[in-house]
């Protein structure tokens, strides 16, 4: 069955499964005939995947229209990918990113590669970049550790739960954390967080060399870290009302300028794609 189809902008989007150990990842390649660069979009986990999906897809389309071929994906056990969330570990998800990068790097023609991580995806991207993979690294609101990302998500979810629970059943986020630390899994936004996942999250840290943009000055491989403001919602919390769509074209445009500079793309090359 054919799954290749062009969007209105004329950029084909190819949805396919990619085999990884024990599962298949759902991927969408925003294909470009003569790419000037490639980008791997490394998104957030679990419920954050759903909240950020809309602007994340539009960012991929924006880049593709500028002749940057983009690959986006769902991690093992999340969204359209196969596998069971509670069986997965940060190591599995990190491996997903690594395997997809290898696949993207094997494509021809060879062009510069951007690793772009959103939220916890920024940690995976940075850790890969540390291993000399990719020509530029861009992070949108990366946490300092996976545990910080989990805590933020938990706090947000527990706050919302309080609105729906009767007073006797209300729990604070610290009570849920206590439950995890005592060895009981919890369910957050439909995903079962195991105690193992919680404990592992303390060890998944943002690499030191990618924390500060200034550290990369003078180096060939550029690093960009952008702490998104609430204007970039729903890419960051607090998310918008469910019926609201925000225009993020300014963010896309500014970010693209950084990408073009970091990958030394000429204006002529990228303009051809948008015409």
């Amino acid at each position, binding site marked *: 069955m054919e799954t290749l189809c062009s969007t209105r902008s004329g950029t084909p989007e190819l*949805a396919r*499964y990619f085999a990884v150990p024990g599962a298949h990842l759902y991927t969408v390649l925003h294909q470009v005939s003569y790419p000037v660069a490639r980008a791997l979009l490394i998104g957030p986990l679990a419920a954050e995947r*759903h909240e950020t999906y809309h602007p994340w897809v539009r960012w991929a389309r924006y880049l593709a229209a500028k002749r940057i071929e983009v690959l986006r994906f769902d991690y093992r056990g999340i*969204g359209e990918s196969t596998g069971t969330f509670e*069986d997965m570990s940060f190591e599995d998800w990190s491996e997903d990113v690594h395997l997809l990068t290898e696949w993207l790097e094997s494509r021809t023609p060879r062009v510069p590669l951007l690793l772009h991580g959103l939220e916890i995806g920024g940690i995976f991207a940075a850790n890969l970049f540390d291993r000399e993979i990719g020509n530029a690294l861009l992070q949108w609101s990366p946490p300092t550790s996976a545990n910080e990302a989990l805590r933020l998500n938990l706090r947000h979810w527990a706050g919302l739960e309080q609105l*729906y629970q009767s007073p006797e059943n209300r729990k604070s986020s610290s009570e849920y954390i206590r439950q995890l630390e005592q060895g009981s899994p919890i369910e957050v936004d*439909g995903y079962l967080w195991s105690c193992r996942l919680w404990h592992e999250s303390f060890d998944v840290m943002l690499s030191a060399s990618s924390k500060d943009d200034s550290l990369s000055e003078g180096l060939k491989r550029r690093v960009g870290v952008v702490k998104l403001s609430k204007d970039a919602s729903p890419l960051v919390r607090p998310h918008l009302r469910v019926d609201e769509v925000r225009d993020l074209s300014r963010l896309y445009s500014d970010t693209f300028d950084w990408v073009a500079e970091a990958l030394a793309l000429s204006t002529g090359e990228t303009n051809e794609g948008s015409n």
Partner: protein
Amino acid sequence: MKEAIESRELFVLDGLGVVVRGTYHKTPADNSGAQSNLKSDRLGVLFISSLFPTRAANGDSAVYWADSFAANGYPSFRLDCPGFGDSDGEPPPGLFEFINRGGYGPILSAKIKELIARFHLSGVVIVGLCAGAVSAIWTSAASTDCRGMILMNPYFYLPQAARPNFRERLSAWSLQTHLGGVLSKCYAHLKEIRLFLSRKSLPKNANYLLLRRFKELASAGLPILIVNGKDRKSPAMKSKIGEFDYLAHVLKSSGRRGQIVVRTVEGADHSLSNRLGRLGAKEHAEQWLNARFPLTDRQGAVISTTHRNPGDSENGCACREQVLNCN
């Protein structure tokens, strides 16, 4: 990179210049080589996405349900509505207004035609959650290929105008304090008395057009399953005290031919995405599908074992038996 794996296949429906993407969950028959014998007598189950959570739905619950229905012999399909998920386009301005007035009905009914032709189906049972349930009703009304509906937490009203700021603060206060809670209950009782005195007529913000479509479908005998998560603040599935009971209204208005079954799932959240919600909705829907649309011997023969998703309990879920059933 593959377009299809053993259990699933990705597809695009691009008729009428509208590109919609989806996932097909294969039945055991699809992989047994028996599909060549399954001409156009297969009934599909179609999930319509609801707003932004994509076709996977919150907590990937739609993936879970589609996997399960397919494993039980019902080919299942999940679609991203135009403007959402991986489908093309942008959400229409005034999104809720668009959905509540049936904006997706015509295009989705056209997409069902494409789906049926492509996958050799005899028709579809449409599944929708919340706003997706509203679109499911409109789509069923616009389609000649709909054989039934599974509506999860549907709503039959239009958004009310924004409340004044002081009322918002008052509402928050009533949620947070004991005294506020007591006063809130008194206020709700007064509202209920007022509703009773006004002979339980429809509220001003009822979605009359949607209710009319629902009544037409139900009174024509379309099998409909309504699955609701139990309100965790309310002692029963009945609408919260002081609120109009739309379920009772639609059951009453469906007439003698109505085939509406209502089930409730205890411990479920609004999106039925937590473990109890997912499991309860799955079991109710499968019982209903098996009762209303039994598989032919040929289709059923391929399914040798009962499929269980990870995390399913051996003894079933803590689902409460039917609370309202017009049968």
